[in-house]
């Protein structure tokens, strides 16, 4: 399927609209803050509209994953082609975009969260121009990762995304922002190196025969990497179940596990969240973490089905540890943002557990959990941000009795909290249900232990609600004002989604059902 505006494909539009916005922002005078803000609103707003268009016309029956034909909105141009390099042959890096059931939900999530993030950025008044420019660049990077089908392109978007994130934390963050930014950078840097090495190893191991010339061409095309027939003889990663393939799987996995973040690669997250400004926390938790699991599903699973099957127990156990460990650590926190950060670790553990099950329920549950968790944590971080804007405090024990002062806020925040707790009727439950269902089929005891996480989760969420919203209102909090219309505007779309998907998740599941079923098939059959 193709969809073009002015001769340019919709995916290119959706990826580069923020860049256009960024250029406009850079051209605008620094003093004209509102113009800058509105530019960002418009840029991300167009993205939301485009995502809506994609949602509407997306063909739910097409499979994608490793079949280039059934990807949708494909755009493919040779980008960098170098003929006849000695002992390498022809180098081909292409501008190859396309989406399938795996990525479409992530695109919708990214555009939505970016839009909400812009609205919540209104309260930032330090270096506005630079902030919005970096913000829009970040959005492009994230969006690009979700649509790229060329490993090189994927890598570039991946790195494009990290740089603005680093600066956004490092310049607009809290008191320990440098530490947090450096930690974030260090982690992702290590991951990036691992991914780069694996990418190169894959590149030299994969060559496809160009039908036009009969030439054997090395390629970065992810889809070609999934086909065992394309591996050259004697390549480092050729064959099945070789040590090198396991090593490559592990290298990629560590890179993505850092992003997810899985125990024990998670410690950058609490610091980054605590120091980052609210909108950046929202983006970080809402979208960035999903890149890790998305990467696993897009790259690790179909390219290395042997490694995936070999390491599936390992993944499930890490998921289990993350669930329990994250929940316990969340319970131990006094800082609202840290608590949510650890709860993210716990919830992303559910995603990993679900996708490690390698069956459709688990996979659907996992991907849906990615989407739901994105929305839920966004609400939670926005909630913290609202309180922080008013009181400049984040400690759980600094609050109390907010329910009396800010009833609307309390209602909305509590819906977010209950969704995080996995309350049926809200979206968190649906995805947790399917993740656990899938996981239970594959790993009984691991899943049973993991499900105890929902008890701990109930513990820390309710404890948080009690400490923040319930109780007597302390004197100092007596003059809090309830949500402004702008703040309501950023909460309401998310809350509506939380409730709607909790009651009727079909529209979301429909989008990915066939793709993910096919992905399971691909992995369990060991490639094609």
């Amino acid at each position, binding site marked *: 399927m193709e969809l073009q505006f002015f001769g340019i494909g919709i995916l290119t539009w959706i990826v580069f609209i923020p860049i256009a916005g960024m250029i406009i922002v850079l051209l605008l005078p620094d003093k004209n803050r509102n113009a800058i803000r509105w530019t960002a609103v418009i840029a991300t707003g167009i993205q939301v509209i485009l995502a809506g268009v994609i949602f509407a016309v997306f063909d739910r029956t097409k499979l994608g994953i490793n079949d280039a034909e059934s990807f949708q909105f494909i755009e493919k141009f040779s980008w960098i082609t170098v003929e006849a390099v000695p002992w390498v042959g022809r180098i081909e890096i292409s501008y190859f975009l396309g989406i399938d059931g795996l990525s479409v939900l992530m695109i919708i999530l990214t555009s939505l969260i970016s839009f909400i993030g812009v609205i919540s950025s209104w309260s930032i008044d330090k270096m506005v121009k630079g902030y919005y420019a970096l913000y829009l660049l970040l959005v492009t990077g994230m969006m690009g990762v979700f649509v790229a089908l060329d490993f090189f392109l994927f890598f570039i978007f991946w790195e494009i995304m990290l740089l603005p994130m680093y600066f956004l934390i490092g310049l607009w963050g809290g008191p320990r922002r440098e530490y947090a930014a*450096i*930690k974030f950078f*260090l*982690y992702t840097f290590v991951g990036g190196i691992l991914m780069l090495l694996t990418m190169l190893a894959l590149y030299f191991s994969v060559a496809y025969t160009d039908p036009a010339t009969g030439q054997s061409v090395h390629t970065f095309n992810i889809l070609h990497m999934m086909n065992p027939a394309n591996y050259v003889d004697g390549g480092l990663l050729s064959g099945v179940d070789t040590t090198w393939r396991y090593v490559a799987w592990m290298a990629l996995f560590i890179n993505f596990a850092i992003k997810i973040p899985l125990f*024990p690669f*998670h*410690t*950058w997250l609490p610091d980054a969240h605590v120091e980052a400004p609210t909108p950046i926390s929202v983006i970080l938790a809402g979208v960035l973490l999903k890149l890790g699991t998305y990467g696993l599903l897009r790259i690790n699973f179909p390219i290395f089905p042997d490694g995936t099957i070999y390491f599936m127990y390992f993944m499930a156990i890490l998921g289990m540890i993350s669930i329990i*460990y994250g929940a*316990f*650590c969340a*319970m*131990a*926190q006094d800082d609202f943002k840290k608590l949510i950060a650890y709860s993210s670790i716990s919830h992303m553990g559910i995603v990993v557990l679900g996708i490690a099950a390698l*069956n*459709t*329920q688990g996979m*659907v549950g996992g991907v849906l959990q990615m989407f739901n968790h994105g929305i839920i944590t966004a609400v939670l971080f926005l909630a913290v941000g609202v309180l922080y804007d008013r009181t400049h405090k984040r400690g759980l024990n600094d609050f109390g*009795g907010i*329910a*009396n002062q800010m009833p609307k806020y309390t*209602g909305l925040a509590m819906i977010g909290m*209950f969704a995080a707790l996995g*309350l*049926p*009727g809200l979206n968190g*439950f*649906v995805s947790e*249900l*399917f993740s*656990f*269902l899938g996981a*239970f*089929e594959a790993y009984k005891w691991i*899943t*049973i232990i993991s*499900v*105890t996480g*929902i*008890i*701990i989760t*109930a*513990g820390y969420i*309710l*404890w948080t609600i*009690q400490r923040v*919203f*319930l*109780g*007597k209102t302390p004197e100092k909090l007596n003059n809090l004002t309830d949500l402004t219309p702008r703040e309501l505007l950023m909460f309401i779309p998310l809350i509506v989604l939380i409730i709607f998907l909790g009651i*009727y*998740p*079909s529209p979301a*599941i*429909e989008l990915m*059902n066939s793709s*993910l*079923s096919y992905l*399971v098939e691909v992995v369990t059959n060991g490639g094609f």
Partner: protein
Amino acid sequence: MFTQLPLTILLLPLLAFILLIFFGKRLPRQGDWLAAGLMTLTLLLSLFLLLFKLNAYPGESISSSFDWVVVGSQTIGFGIMIDNLAAVMLVVVTLVSTLVHYFSMGYMKDDVRYSRYFAYLGLFSFSMLGIVLTNNILLMYVFWELVGISSYLLIGHWYEKKSASNAANKAFIVNRVGDFGMFIGIMILFLSFSTFTFEAIFESISAGQLPFGSEGWLTAAGILIFCGAVGKSAQFPLHVWLPDAMEGPTPVSALIHAATMVAAGVYLVARVFPMLTADALLVIAYIGAITALIAATIAITQFDIKKVLAYSTISQLGYMIMALGVGAYTAGFMHLVTHAAFKAGLFLGAGSVIFGMHAALHKLHDHDTDAQDIRNMGGLKSRMPATYWTFLIFTLAISGIPLTSGFLSKDEILAGTLAFSTLNGHWLLPLIGFLVAGLTAFYMFRLLILTFHGKPVNEKMIEGVTESPKVMTIPLMILAALSLFFFYSFNPFGASSGWFYSAIERPLSMVPELMQPAAYPVFYEAVSSVHSFAMLLSILIAGAGVLMALAVYQWKKVSADDLAKRAGVLYSGSVNKWYFDEIYDTVFVNGSHVIMKMLRWFDENIIDGIVNGSAVITLIFSKVSGWIDTNIVDGLVNGTASTANKAGGLLSHIQTGKVQTYLVYVIFSFLVLFVLFL
């Protein structure tokens, strides 16, 4: 008919919730009339549904469903199922809920969050009706949790009190523990049968399919699902939340923590009864018996009027569970219905008393005296006649005195346990059953006497107590009427001849034959053979309990303190609720605190330590590379010329101009040559 009507019944309370939560404060009277009106309408519709069902389609179960979601190739449907069980339960829930709505108009009159309160009642009614109406265990779980959350919200209604929010948390988390088991049970069922609907699950089991091909897993699945009931129905060992839940407003206690929500566990067991194996049922029976005994022994020594009722609720729930466990299905469910009426009545009566006490204390500006402590009461009989007489009927009913509804159901339960023991030899069950019957009569009359009879402790205060308004006493009277026998069976000594027994029949067990409990005809025969004996015995024991209570508290023939001293350890154990809270606090609460602190320390020191360590290494590395950059790379770039210069300078160091240094070189080179050519 059986799709739209139940759906309307289900959604009307939700409508009330939505309207009140958004517009409640702007409506006249904060919208209580709206909530109560919609609830009354629901009640009428439910009554109509019940009558229609019993007359037009007796013995059939009618369900309709729609596809909720498709995952992979599996379709998960949601739907509604109406059978006699559901229809009866529907009326029970809507009836109690409606009465509580009206009662609350009086009780909660000056509450700060009046409309919020009614909104939550609507949410609760909606979720409870959902549990009743669903045909699907997953959907039941969904409503199960929703009931939990509305219970959480209502217990924490007065959230300014720390104890209230603590109790709400405790209720939810303890329930979650039970739900954890239920969730795993549901997962086992779904993975084995690829469906969530009850009927399809039963069909698969009767077709010989077993979860994971093993009979043990079927028993396990049954027990795990029962875990949900353990949590919600406050069975041992998860009973600790219910007494604390009394922090909520008293009408809420009546609705949620006495009549309906806590009975949901019983309803769940009744729903999944066909898939329970004999082993699972035995476990269920014993859990029920233990619960009944523990709660009854605690109730004897409590002084808080609501706590006594809470423990009696737990005890009665234990009865119901035990009844289901032994196979007295109809008796257990009947006890649920009768108990709903009289226990709701008891709580509302207690609410009325507390309401009056509060008002009286308020007049005296006394804020220290506990309005719920029965030691501060006494002699209220004359001040609150309507409350007293209805309370008396409820007490008679719960004690199992003939001519009441409680007698009918309790008698059948006791007969059932006795029959079970004659069949299987588990003598402990009827023993506990009769013992608890006696204890119940004793502590309920103790409560009645201490509250309404005797001399008041504080005359002045008691004189200030007045009867509650009509909006509160009329629901009591309705419930009192419903606590009499003729609503259930026209024969005051035999429930089995009434409409209830014909409407609610024990379903056939679907499990493989070897694992089935005793078949119904066999069981029925055993029951009939012991029925008269059981009846006689239960009347005697209940009477003994009543007499005992009268002797101790009314006629003061025996000193209560003396008895307490004689009981010794038993007494202190009972007063302290057998130390369950303390044990759980130490083991689970402190345990998880220790774990979380440990993990936090581990996270911040070990894992982060490793990370920071690697950061330091990176820093060193970067310094080294920086040095290389400035000195080697830059040197190459910037100073090829100065390299020569520097080299010259370096060589010129040799040129000290000192003869002896030259000589050192000379001799050194000479020696080197010497060595080389030697």
